[in-house]
């Protein structure tokens, strides 16, 4: 149905592309995915801080955080049940009573169809697996850090921490490459108690997601929308895509991500022109007399 990046990377007869569909409408913010990921992948502790952002004390994806549950407490107009009005204790007179809703979403590496991290990696440490995912080979990465600013989602990062395993090396979600080889579900999806994180063949997940959005629209949740499911977006579609209940930037996701290497041919062309300009200039300054 869609392009298979494993084929593009030279795999012969690869298995179907594997991915995640994270349905945030049923996420309950339990963080079991964060814990399961840390546990299975032996990802080191990266400190405990109170960040003052609802129940999110994880902060962001990083070299030592491969799943991150975002929590947003959002005011929404109160639904009138037609009940007699009773003042709340401590309620300011005349103040509008508002309700609020939780938005919770477990973020992860998107395993892009066109992955900038992989494109720019100068050692070949980052590679495309037969499952169509993107994985760092930790024994090859030399910590140049180029993948970090290249990622349009701010996912991959160099691992920091004195003396921790793989310190200074770029790290991120592997979609549990080791478990996939044994036919197992990635640790986060396995641990998710509500099936908010669904794992499987990407084509099948896309169909499931389309049906889920339709069901939500029919049941009165018009704000439900898919993020990253389309192969026509700026990164060729995500291997790990989402169902969101608000704009992507509310969850800390870029609204219109583009793989930076899309413009690389023009960049090389400009650099070639600039180099020619410098060479011509250098010849001219010696041709011009004393």
């Amino acid at each position, binding site marked *: 149905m869609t392009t298979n990046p494993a084929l593009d990377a030279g795999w012969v007869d690869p298995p179907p592309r594997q991915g995640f569909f994270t349905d945030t409408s049923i996420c309950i913010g339990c963080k079991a995915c964060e814990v399961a990921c840390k546990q299975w992948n032996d990802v080191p502790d990266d400190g405990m801080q109170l960040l003052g*952002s609802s129940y*999110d004390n994880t902060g962001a994806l990083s070299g030592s955080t491969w799943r991150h549950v975002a929590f*947003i407490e959002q005011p929404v107009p109160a639904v009138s049940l037609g009940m007699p009005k009773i003042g709340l204790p401590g309620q300011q007179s005349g103040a509008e009573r508002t309700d609020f809703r939780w938005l919770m979403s477990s973020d992860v590496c998107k395993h892009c169809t066109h992955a*900038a991290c992989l*494109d*720019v*990696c*100068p*050692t*070949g*440490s980052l590679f495309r697996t037969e499952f169509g995912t993107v994985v760092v080979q930790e024994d*090859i*990465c*030399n*910590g*140049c*850090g*180029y993948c*970090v*600013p*290249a*990622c*349009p*989602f*701010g*996912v991959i990062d*160099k691992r920091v921490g004195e003396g921790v395993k793989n310190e200074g090396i*770029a790290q991120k979600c592997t979609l549990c490459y080791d478990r996939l080889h044994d036919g197992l579900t990635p640790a986060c999806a396995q641990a998710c108690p509500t099936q908010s994180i669904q794992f499987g063949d990407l084509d099948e997940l896309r169909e499931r997601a389309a049906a889920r959005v339709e069901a939500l629209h029919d049941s009165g949740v018009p704000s439900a929308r898919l993020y990253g499911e389309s192969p026509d977006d700026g990164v060729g579609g995500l291997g790990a895509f989402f169902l969101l209940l608000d*704009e992507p*930037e*509310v*969850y*800390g996701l*870029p*609204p*219109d*991500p583009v793989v*930076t290497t899309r*413009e*690389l041919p*023009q*960049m*090389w062309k*400009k*650099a*070639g*022109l*600039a*180099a020619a*300009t*410098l*060479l011509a*200039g*250098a*010849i*001219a*300054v*010696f041709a*011009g007399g*004393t």
Partner: protein
Amino acid sequence: MVPPATFTSYYGRPVLKASPWKDDIPAYLFLGGLAAGSSLLGAGADLTHRPRLRQSSRVAALAAISASMAALVHDLGKPSRFVNMLRVAKPSSPMSMGTWLLTAYGPMVGLAGVAELAPGRLGRLLAPLARPAGLVAALTAPAVASYTAVLLADTATPAWHEAYRELPFVFVGSAAAAAGGLGMLASPVAESGPAQRLAIGGALLELGMERRMERSMGLAAEALHEGKPGRLWRTAERLTALGAVTALGARRSRVLGVLSGAALLTGSACTRFAIFEAGQESARDPRYTVVPQRERVDARQG
């Protein structure tokens, strides 16, 4: 510019990650450019019999590229694995291409530079190799000076990526200004004509392209005008303009030549640090990521 619309973010946190690169990288951008420009001056001086300019340029190129290599290795998370860069050659990775470029360029600069410095028998042994090595270095030098622009632009960092059209010209201009400046500083007035012309030409190219770049970058240009990168950017502009004007008198006065050279070298370094820091800042502030992308989405949806 229209003030940016309000935008939504997740607790004001960055969407992108700023590069983990430290001062090593902008220092390399400057030194690599200086080395490249100096290699061009050195080869030209060699072919046109300007021994003092040739000598100072070759030695400058050697010193600058040696310091560059040290900075590049030092910036790695695992410096001992530097050689892993040579496992692959990937056109999609400007850093990979740059590594191979430096692998070709560096040893040639080394040969030409060491030939100038080595005493006695070694010097005589290397002397016949100096010219061909210097010429090969000069032919690869323009690419060394310009590829670093692609290195920065080929990222999601807004102030680097959005500058991709003009940045290579800014960088080669800056390289020419720095190398020309050093040539005026280090060689006698009788031989510094080409250095003076390279310096002025480079400074004009840099200043002109910077104005164009500021207009084509959109919102990301603001990162070049605010805070620490803004101060560096303004300093770079003034020093480069001052250096170009002073260079006009460099053939009559050695003092003016030295002043001009110092201004141009400092200006070139400030340019590189300003652009580097602007990029870092543009990655840390979600405004630079969300506002232009939201505008694109809204425009598509009509």
